[in-house]
């Protein structure tokens, strides 16, 4: 494990036992990187400031609730939260396009050509990739039922016949697959909607 990660982990532990200095050092240490990451996506200082603040509010709340998984990966975890909030920001803006008054008004800023932007294509492809990875985390029997139902669109009767179990068992496996997926999503603060 890298020295930097060990130090982060130690600071998180300090913070978890009530030492606020731990958080201060963590924010000071990573603020530039997190801020630059957000800025590189939204290209607006005020929005970056808001998303940066929301990111660390989520970090603080998760830590205080004891929901943070100590795996020596503090910064990637924070970046992931920031990334999800950036996606939220673009999603909100798509629902409610913002009109900014400028001297060099460009009508194409406010009307769409009906095609998905590259940005949204990237978001969609990332969401799909995340779902694929999540499904891979499931136990084999649940993964099998979920794949047949969702991706192959088979009925539960067909699934039951194909996997040689009763319909109730197939239904139960599907139910547990969904419960487990939700658990992983909540635990890792993953956002899978657009």
């Amino acid at each position, binding site marked *: 494990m890298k020295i930097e990660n060990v130090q982060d982990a130690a600071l998180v532990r300090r913070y978890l036992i009530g030492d*606020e200095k731990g*958080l*201060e050092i963590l*924010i*000071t240490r990573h*603020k*530039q990187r997190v*801020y*630059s990451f957000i*800025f*590189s996506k939204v*290209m607006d*200082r005020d929005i*970056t*400031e808001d998303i*940066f*603040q929301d990111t*660390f*509010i989520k970090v*603080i*709340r998760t830590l*205080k*609730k*004891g929901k943070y998984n100590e795996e020596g990966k503090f910064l990637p975890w924070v970046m992931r939260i920031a990334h999800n909030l950036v996606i939220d920001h673009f999603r909100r803006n798509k629902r409610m396009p913002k009109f900014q008054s400028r001297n060099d008004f460009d009508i194409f800023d406010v009307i769409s050509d009906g095609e998905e932007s590259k940005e949204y294509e990237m978001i969609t492809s990332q969401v799909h990739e995340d779902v694929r990875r999540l499904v891979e985390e499931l136990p084999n029997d649940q993964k099998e039922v979920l794949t047949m139902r969702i991706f192959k669109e088979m009925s539960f009767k067909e699934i039951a016949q194909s996997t040689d179990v009763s319909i109730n068992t197939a239904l139960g496996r599907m139910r547990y697959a969904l419960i487990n997926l939700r658990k992983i999503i909540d635990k890792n603060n993953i956002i899978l909607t657009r």
Partner: protein
Amino acid sequence: MAKLYNESFPEPVKPTGPKEETVKFLLNFSKALSVTRYKNMTFETLNN
């Protein structure tokens, strides 16, 4: 006499890092936030 104007180009925007007040807000938020657990429930309280 004709007035001369310089055409000024906008400076390239560089990320400068969060404002000091944002960091201060986060540290104060952290100090004010307390989390209480009761059975399966979690309660958040902001003590300002």
